[in-house]
């Protein structure tokens, strides 16, 4: 099993005729993902290497039966694209767009919650999701992900940082550990899907034996995760938090990663996770090694 997406997930790409959408959409298809359509207003009837393009998400869904969407459009257009997908009945939306204003993210999140409570948004500004061997939506290079071994002990990954998501996949591959699903939730101020959402799914997924979590400075998402873990997660976990040495008051690359007013420090987050029973590594490699020990102890 996998969480959120699997071999049956049918995906449309919003922005398939654009540079990013085409590049990643085709890569996702090459990986084996069922990419059934694309959406670009005004370009309905065309195709991108055999993938039919539609004028609207509603048309695309009606024609293909898609249940997931990959939003790869510029920041100005992303909020409307997400809401269009939700209105068309798409249940799982992945938005990789970087640079969406925080006010738009807050408004989109509140709108989804009010009008489309059964739709899940992943992102914006996230690398996407991969259930290795089954489905890859987003920008992750599929070859660095180790598919799960049947009947073996496999790991679920949830990460707030893009490149560290790949690093985490890579570390587990080095250790020969299979991954059920790897979710990159993104580091923006209002992510559609949180650590807690993913932890709850992994806890309930029979194929996932342990969970690797990658966090970073800023906000309080890791602290909330720690509370949730304490109360609800029985599966063993390892974690890494980036930004121990980040100076206060400076944004580290994207809007989410900032230590302000003494809040959101890496140390505070590591302490909270340790108190919840999570094994915390000092760097991504150590977190991978800790996970290898966990997996060994399970056998």
């Amino acid at each position, binding site marked *: 099993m996998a969480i959120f997406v699997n071999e049956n997930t049918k995906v449309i790409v919003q922005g398939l005729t654009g540079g990013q959408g085409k590049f990643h959409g085709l890569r996702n298809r090459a990986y084996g993902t069922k990419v059934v359509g694309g959406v670009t207003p005004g370009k309905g009837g065309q195709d991108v290497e055999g993938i039919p393009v539609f004028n609207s998400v509603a048309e695309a869904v009606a024609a293909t039966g898609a249940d997931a969407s990959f939003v790869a459009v510029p920041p100005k257009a992303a909020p409307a694209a997400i809401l269009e997908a939700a209105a068309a009945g798409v249940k799982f939306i992945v938005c990789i767009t970087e640079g969406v204003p*925080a006010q738009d993210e807050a408004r989109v999140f509140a709108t989804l919650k009010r009008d489309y409570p059964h739709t899940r948004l992943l992102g914006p500004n996230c690398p996407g999701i991969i259930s290795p061997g089954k489905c890859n939506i987003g920008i992750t290079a599929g070859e660095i992900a180790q598919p799960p071994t049947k009947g073996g002990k496999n790991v679920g990954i949830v990460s707030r940082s893009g490149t560290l998501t790949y*690093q985490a996949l890579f570390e587990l591959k080095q250790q020969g550990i299979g991954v059920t699903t790897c979710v990159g939730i993104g580091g923006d101020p209002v992510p559609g899907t949180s650590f807690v959402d993913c932890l709850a799914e992994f806890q309930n997924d029979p194929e996932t034996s342990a969970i690797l979590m990658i966090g970073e400075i800023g906000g309080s*998402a890791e602290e909330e995760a720690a509370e949730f873990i304490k109360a609800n997660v029985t599966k063993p976990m390892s974690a890494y938090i980036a930004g121990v*040495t980040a100076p206060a008051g400076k944004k580290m690359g994207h809007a989410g*990663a900032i230590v302000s*007013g003494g809040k959101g420090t890496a140390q505070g987050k590591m302490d909270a996770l340790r108190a919840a029973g999570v094994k915390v590594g000092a760097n991504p490699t150590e977190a991978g090694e800790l996970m290898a020990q966990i997996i060994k102890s399970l056998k």
Partner: protein
Amino acid sequence: MDLFEYQGKQYFASFGIPVSAGDVAHTVDESVAIAERIGYPVVVKAQVQVGGRGKAGGIKLANDKNEVRTHAGNIIGMDIKGHVVKRVWIERASDIAEEYYASFTLDRAAKQHLLMLSAQGGVDIEEVAAKDPKAIVKLHVNPVAGLSESAAKKAAVDAKIPTKAQDGVASILVKLYDCFVKGDCDLAEINPLILKPTGEVHALDAKVSLDGNAAFRHPEWEPFAATQELDEREQLARDKGLQYIGLDGSVGIIANGAGLAMSTLDVVNQVGGKAANFLDIGGGANAELMTSALEVINFDTKVRSIFINIFGGITRGEEVAKGIVEAMRRVELRAPIVIRLDGTNADEGRRILAAAGISAEKLISKPTMLEAARTAVAIANGKSGN
């Protein structure tokens, strides 16, 4: 992007929030001219983005032309905690009956807007929060529903704002919320929000932080961006479109992705070094970007070694390697490079680096992040890299 007080007040004014009459001056003569125009007494306020201006002597009351001349003369050029005062804000002095506090931010945990309102203003709100948390009213505002006048009034009542000021405060809260949302602020704060003896409510200070991601729909922000105070390295990096933050160590850092860059800083620290900077070159580590990144790092005279930490996902290892080789042809580097290249096609990338004929003193390749960090730190600390 953090605004100066004068910019914050101008921004507030554009949303109808009452602020004191005033203008910004760069010289003593300009200061006097503004004071003459708006009438005495005036307050001369240093424009720096750091707290504690008043204590440092950066805020002075002036009753006439001569006092303006003296105070502006003292304040312009003054160093306040490392910030040199380039501008002063001259505004009409206000009589103050009471001081309150009001702010809007995004509560990331609740994924909603957050109003904080207190009848105890004019002091550090963190201190109020620590001493008397009940003195601050916190109200979540749903980003779709927005803030109604009646909800704002209720907040004012709950915060024990006196009856005579409640309507004035509520009216400003609605405008401040409008500024926060339509103005794309990360933070919109008034401290103090004052009640005048005449009964009017008015913003005496302005702290505004803007969301850079929204710049595309705010052409009026351009003058704000022009006054951002960056160090020389940060300015150079911005001109080249790089995500760079200057730090004070000796190991120059280049990584792809913010998380990996932060992680690189951490690992350098763990093995006994200090990073000179944070630099995220993003996904496409091509020759152009790598050249720009190396130029920025090279500009920093404290750098003793350069740690390039690349994890190829979409970006393939051989492209990164070609980029580095090309960049090293273009830039004469003052410090050796230690590179860790992993991920997609990393083997081929390493082969290209090895075959480029660059001397082992200038370019050292290490297989893992940790080993590369150790080598970079050893070089920076004056020890042999091997």
